[in-house]
């Protein structure tokens, strides 16, 4: 791939999705865009870029989607779900006893494995949640992956990565080589398209936010802005869960880590007012201590 095309794609992805590719990610572009160029009926990535430069918005949208969609699996990394079951939920059951409702946001819900893993965790808690309302909102940049998530249909390969066999038998219905998660688990998850670069204050306040393996793609400034806005979208005693390779340390102090629980964070300060939450992004980034 020639350097000008690589620069063109880098800039376009940065502007459209916040994806911040370093100079050495040619392999990533090739692995994602070669299948797409075949799908679009052109021989290679050069031709795809030509079409994008020629003003094909449909191809631009598909390129952004292909580059930002990530493979995921059920109960990815395991430990965050143990935190959810053993620390977050027991505390929330006490803290929300009067309200009897909990709002959870999967900020990079992708093809549904994460929100459905949380839904299965909640089902497994059984009677302790009787009479409670638990909302799981799954958002993603990509409409295509949201559609897959809504369908709850997974290949035999996908259901074998991370999903214990007992849960497969309990919560999925087999249809040939495909497996569909049960209607009552699907009903626990609401789906919305959302770009984390844009304002998300309309989603309301959450008790728990899973925002895993998405911020790694953003540059520092964008990360700080998103952390600032996540903090405002969260109850003061809420929990933020980040991916295994992600950290907030050294970026901003709007969240503080749990010393003994890797990837788990809690808002540091008093909660922002609605007026502040509605403010424009750059200003919030500035407030976040840059």
């Amino acid at each position, binding site marked *: 791939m020639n350097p000008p095309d690589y620069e063109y794609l880098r800039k376009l992805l940065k502007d459209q999705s916040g994806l911040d590719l370093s100079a050495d990610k040619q392999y*990533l572009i090739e692995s994602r865009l070669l299948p797409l160029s075949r799908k679009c009926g052109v021989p290679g990535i050069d031709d795809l870029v030509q079409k994008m430069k020629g003003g094909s918005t449909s191809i631009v949208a598909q390129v952004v989607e292909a580059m930002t969609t*990530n493979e995921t*699996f059920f109960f*990815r*990394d*395991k*430990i965050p779900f143990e935190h959810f079951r053993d620390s977050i939920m027991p505390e929330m059951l006490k803290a929300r006893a009067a309200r009897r409702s909990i709002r959870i946001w999967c900020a990079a819900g992708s093809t549904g494995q994460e929100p459905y893993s949380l839904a299965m965790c909640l089902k497994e808690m059984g009677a302790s949640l009787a009479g409670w309302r638990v909302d799981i909102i799954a958002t993603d940049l990509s409409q295509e992956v949201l559609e897959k998530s809504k369908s709850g249909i997974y290949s*035999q*390969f996908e259901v*074998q*990565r*991370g999903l*214990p*066999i*007992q849960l*497969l*038998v309990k919560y999925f219905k*087999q249809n040939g*080589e495909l497996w569909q998660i049960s209607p009552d688990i699907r009903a626990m998850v609401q789906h919305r398209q959302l770009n984390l670069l844009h304002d998300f204050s309309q989603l309301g306040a959450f008790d728990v936010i899973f925002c895993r*393996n998405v911020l*790694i793609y953003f540059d520092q400034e964008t990360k700080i802005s998103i952390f600032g806005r996540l903090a405002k979208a969260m109850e003061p005693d809420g929990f933020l869960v980040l*991916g*295994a*390779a*992600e950290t907030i340390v050294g970026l901003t102090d709007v969240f503080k880590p749990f010393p003994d629980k890797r990837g788990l964070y809690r808002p540091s300060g008093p909660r922002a007012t609605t007026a502040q939450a509605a403010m424009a992004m750059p200003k919030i980034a500035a407030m976040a201590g840059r």
Partner: protein
Amino acid sequence: MKTCLVVDDSGVVRKIARRILEEMDFQITEAEDGEKALEACKRAMPDAVLLDWNMPVMDGYEFLGHLRRMPGGDRPKVVFCTTENGVDHISRALHAGANEYIMKPFDKDIVTAKFQEVGLIELTEQSPV
């Protein structure tokens, strides 16, 4: 070093499984049917058994029943690895004492995930990209 008994009537499958499991630091023994697998378990009880279902002489399901009644036979983690991918087969296997279940075809990621699931190997950090 942990030991794993690979039971499958296909030499090709045993070879693939051996390669994957050796990379995960298991010491491998092989058996081509349930009867030979039982003999291997009498000689030395493995930590793990990767078990095909359909085999001549004695199938994997029957082997599992015998294994779980042997002295020390409750100890190995048994992971089925079979083309039988129906819920009925999976449920029967679990009732008979299987710990996990792989539906063929399988690859390294699936074996790793399933062996993590039953605690045979430690969790590894997955790189996000």
